[in-house]
């Protein structure tokens, strides 16, 4: 298996209460190759390699799913909202067109 992909989950604002609607941002390092460009060094066409599906879950229960295409930018960013129901763990599971699966989690810690 390839080394784990680098990614980041951010909550905005950083401090929030139960009942607040916050932004959940997910940034990931991924080439999102379209399959239409040539490698400058080898002259070969770089095969399509892009994230094609993402699931955002709270304590294992999905609350947002996405289907993604190669037309999304390299090292992409995805942002949705979440109405904070309480303490928990946010997990972002994502797969790409080669079948590679990855996951990133972050604890949801509302104050009060």
């Amino acid at each position, binding site marked *: 298996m390839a080394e784990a992909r*680098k990614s980041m989950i951010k909550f905005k604002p950083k401090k929030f209460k139960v009942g607040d609607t916050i932004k959940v941002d997910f940034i990931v390092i991924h080439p999102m190759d379209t399959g239409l460009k040539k490698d400058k060094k080898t002259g070969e066409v770089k095969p399509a390699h892009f994230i094609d599906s993402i699931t955002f879950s709270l304590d294992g229960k999905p609350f947002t799913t996405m289907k993604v295409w190669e037309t999304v930018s390299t090292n992409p960013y995805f942002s949705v909202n979440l109405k904070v129901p309480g303490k928990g763990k946010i997990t972002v599971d994502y797969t790409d067109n080669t079948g590679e699966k990855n996951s990133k989690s972050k604890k949801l810690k509302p104050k009060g």
Partner: protein
Amino acid sequence: MKKVLLACAFLSTMAMLQLNAGEQFAMSDADRAMYKEMLENNPAEIYVEEGGEIFEETLGGEEALAKFLGVSEKDLPKYIAGFPRYIKKLGNVVGLDQVMQAMQVEQGKEKTKLKSGKMFSMLAYVKSLANDELINIDVEADEHIKASYALGKTTYMTARGGRGLACNSCHSADIVGQVLRTQPLPDLGEVAVAGTWPAYRMTKSSLRTPQRRFQGCMKNALLKVIPIGSKEMIALEVYVATLAKAKNKKIAIPGLKR
């Protein structure tokens, strides 16, 4: 000369038409706000985080850096905001990346190449420790930094290469703002090159350091590229840092650029 002129007659005409039309390509306030927001989700932050992990685990982090430089951890951010500096231990005016290499040597570790993703990430992390500090480079501090500043200014002003261009040819006060290839030429102090690079470059989809950006510009201007970490490159960084300092710019790493 004629062939080349013919080849880009169209481009030249376009450029000349836009000689004083910087405004037409100036960003609208709404667009500017959108791009500013992108800074909050900068992919470079992931590289900065990674650089931090490597820096902590393999070099001993801020504690080790402060000790190596002979400053307190509390003063470290302000000290970082004054780089490049003359470091007596190293006998040269150096950048933070060279300081880290020296630390590796001191710790008996393998030196990370200056021109490597690993070093770019570490450099970005260490520089980000000084975020929000004013750029405070002191080019009068000692004879070495004075000499580096003089060399940097000369390098910036010297016309060279097939087209007889200097950095100043495009970035001097009276040229700045004019449009070249659809982009208004920037004032390097105003855009705080010294404060906002390393940055994520959208056109390269990666973290780029200021020296690499200078190299990219030199390539385009048909100037012989100056090597990373060389005396002249450091000197250029010193000179460009004073431009940002003069405009009271702060460190804000990582930046986000076209």
